[in-house]
């Protein structure tokens, strides 16, 4: 928005600068004219005096009148020049005033705020729009210095400072950053700042100019769209699974129906005492064929499931945890849960399918966050810890939620078992299947202080 506003300003300022030039030029001309006038007066008086002495008094009055007329013309001419001079001065003044009001109007009506600061990070200028956005007055903001900026979110201050330092390091490059800010009334908001170097009229780099836009609404809309998309994905997966299950149920029903009818027929025969061994033998063969048919359907489903072969590679579990934590961050923020990572440095490498294990970590974290929906705000902490235990790398996810009651515990890993309103009951079941695929172990226990801890132990390389 800076470049956009600069062009009309330039347009208004252009005539005023040429007015300055005209005024200067007229001033020179005035001096020249006054000099000319003086010369003319001197010349004419000298001429009159010399003529008067040469021809006695008879020509004198005529000459005097002539001189007076010449002088009169000179005065009129001088006054006209003065008027022209004054008018050009007035023009310049009007142009200046217009430029000033335009700039004021520009600052007052812009929705985006401007903020300038010097090389030391001291705020040197804030636009009215910026004051409106933050709720602080001009006086409260001017002179404030990093890191004591009143509109910074205290939780985000560290990150903001980092951004500021990064900006200083890639000198003379403008960049845009999204930062969390806080209004004077304590209300948090998200802002986009486009920082560019502030160059003064003499071409010197005197600080930084930031154009600030409140993007809270846009960010919320973006998050909602993301959530919507995730829900849609989950629904479509659910539908696919439901369809598969329904198709499989129908297909299995066919051979089962045939078998049950054959068996019922055989029983009828036996009960009636009309046993024809050859016929019964033939029926038994038919039953066996239907059994094979059912087995075929099941092995087809197995083949379908096995299509997703795991892709093993040797990775650092800690980096995977960090990635998963980043993935779940928005989710955690929404439910005001703080994620604490206690990762042991120098953890041995594990050979895993990164996508699958990440799935486990995200699932466990999401469960933990969901479990704390009724926990008091200050206790909503999800702790993710890694450590080495023998030849295993161990990951622990602890929540401070409602914990797991014994009757729930016995069904925890059952498919389609869920305590969540919208849950499918597949999360933990899938987690355990993945853990087993990695020859790992997924266990859980109740915390003495409330909540639950899930532990994933993965076999690690030992050199």
């Amino acid at each position, binding site marked *: 928005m800076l470049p956009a506003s600069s062009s009309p300003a330039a347009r208004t300022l252009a005539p005023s600068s040429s007015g300055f030039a005209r005024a200067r030029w007229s001033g020179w001309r005035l001096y020249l004219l006054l000099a000319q006038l003086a010369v003319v007066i001197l010349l004419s008086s000298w001429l009159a005096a010399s003529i008067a002495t040469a021809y006695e008094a008879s020509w004198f009055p005529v000459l005097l009148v002539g001189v007076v007329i010449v002088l009169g013309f000179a005065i009129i001419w001088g006054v006209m020049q003065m008027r022209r001079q004054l008018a050009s001065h007035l023009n310049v003044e009007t142009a200046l005033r217009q430029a000033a009001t335009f700039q004021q109007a520009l600052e007052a009506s812009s929705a985006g705020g401007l903020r300038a600061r010097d090389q030391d990070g001291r705020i040197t200028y804030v636009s009215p729009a910026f004051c409106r956005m933050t709720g602080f007055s001009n006086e409260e903001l001017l002179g404030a210095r990093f890191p004591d900026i009143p509109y910074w979110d205290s939780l985000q201050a560290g990150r903001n400072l980092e951004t500021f330092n990064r900006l200083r390091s890639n000198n003379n490059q403008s960049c845009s950053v999204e930062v969390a800010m806080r209004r004077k009334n304590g209300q948090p908001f998200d802002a986009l700042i486009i920082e560019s170097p502030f160059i003064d009229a003499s071409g010197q780099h005197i600080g930084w100019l930031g154009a600030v836009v409140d993007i809270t609404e846009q960010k919320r809309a973006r998050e909602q769209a993301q959530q919507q998309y995730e829900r849609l994905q989950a629904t479509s997966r659910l539908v696919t699974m439901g369809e598969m299950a329904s198709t499989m149920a*129908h297909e299995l*029903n066919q051979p089962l*129906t045939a078998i049950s*009818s054959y068996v*019922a*027929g055989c029983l009828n025969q036996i009960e009636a005492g009309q046993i024809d061994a050859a016929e019964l033998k033939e029926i038994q063969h038919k039953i066996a064929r239907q059994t094979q048919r059912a087995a075929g359907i099941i092995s087809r489903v197995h083949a379908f499931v096995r299509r997703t072969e795991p892709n093993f590679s040797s990775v650092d579990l800690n980096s995977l945890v960090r990635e998963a934590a980043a993935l779940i961050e928005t989710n955690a923020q929404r439910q005001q849960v703080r994620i604490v990572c206690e990762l042991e440095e120098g953890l041995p490498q594990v050979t895993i399918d990164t996508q699958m294990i990440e799935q486990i970590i995200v699932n466990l974290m999401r469960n933990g966050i969901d479990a704390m929906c009724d926990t008091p705000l200050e206790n909503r902490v999800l702790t993710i810890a890694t450590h080495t235990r023998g030849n295993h790398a161990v990951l622990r996810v602890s929540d401070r939620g409602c914990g797991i009651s014994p009757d729930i515990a016995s069904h925890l890993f059952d498919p389609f078992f869920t305590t969540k309103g919208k849950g499918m009951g597949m999360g933990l079941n899938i987690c355990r299947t993945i853990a087993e695929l990695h020859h790992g172990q997924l266990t859980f226990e109740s915390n003495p202080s409330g909540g639950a801890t899930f532990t994933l132990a993965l076999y690690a390389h030992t050199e």
Partner: protein
Amino acid sequence: MSKSYAYIIDDDEAICDALTWQFRTRGIECMSWSSAEDFLREWRPDWCGCIVLDIRLKGMNGLACFDILLENHCLLPVIFITSHGDIQMAVGTLKKGAFDFVEKPFNYNELADRVLAAFEADAERRRALTDRDTVEQRLATLTGREREVMGLILEGRYNKVIANQLAISMRTVEAHRSHIFNKMHVRSAVELAQLLAVLKKD
């Protein structure tokens, strides 16, 4: 009178075979088709017994087949065999006049028992058709106006024509028609004519 059969329509060959075998052990004669189209081509109105119809069929499904049978005044009881997800559909067929529905896989002799019950119902209906006393008893329950309307129905008049002739509204004719069918225990004008033919025989 022709012999009673269970007419099995299922696109799964194994099920047709298994049912045929099981029914035979209970003394039920069977005929089977793998599609509704094949069955409808061969079906004759004078067949006795009952129809065992799968809801899910390749080509025309069981529900469409049932509708066609109703349109053609088929009087055979129909037992639907359904999968787990089709219960809603099956309940709908009961409202239309299906005899029953049985869910796959069947419980021991459950289906065979239902088939035998359907045979009984079919035989009962046919007996009524040939029993003069029953017909007269039913006729006696009709009101004068209903007899009048019945006469016109048997002449093959449309409701509209009947309404004009008797100077009553279409709705009233429709109400009379349904009362007549209920009292005479029939489902169509054709069946009504068959029923009354018994009286004319002598």
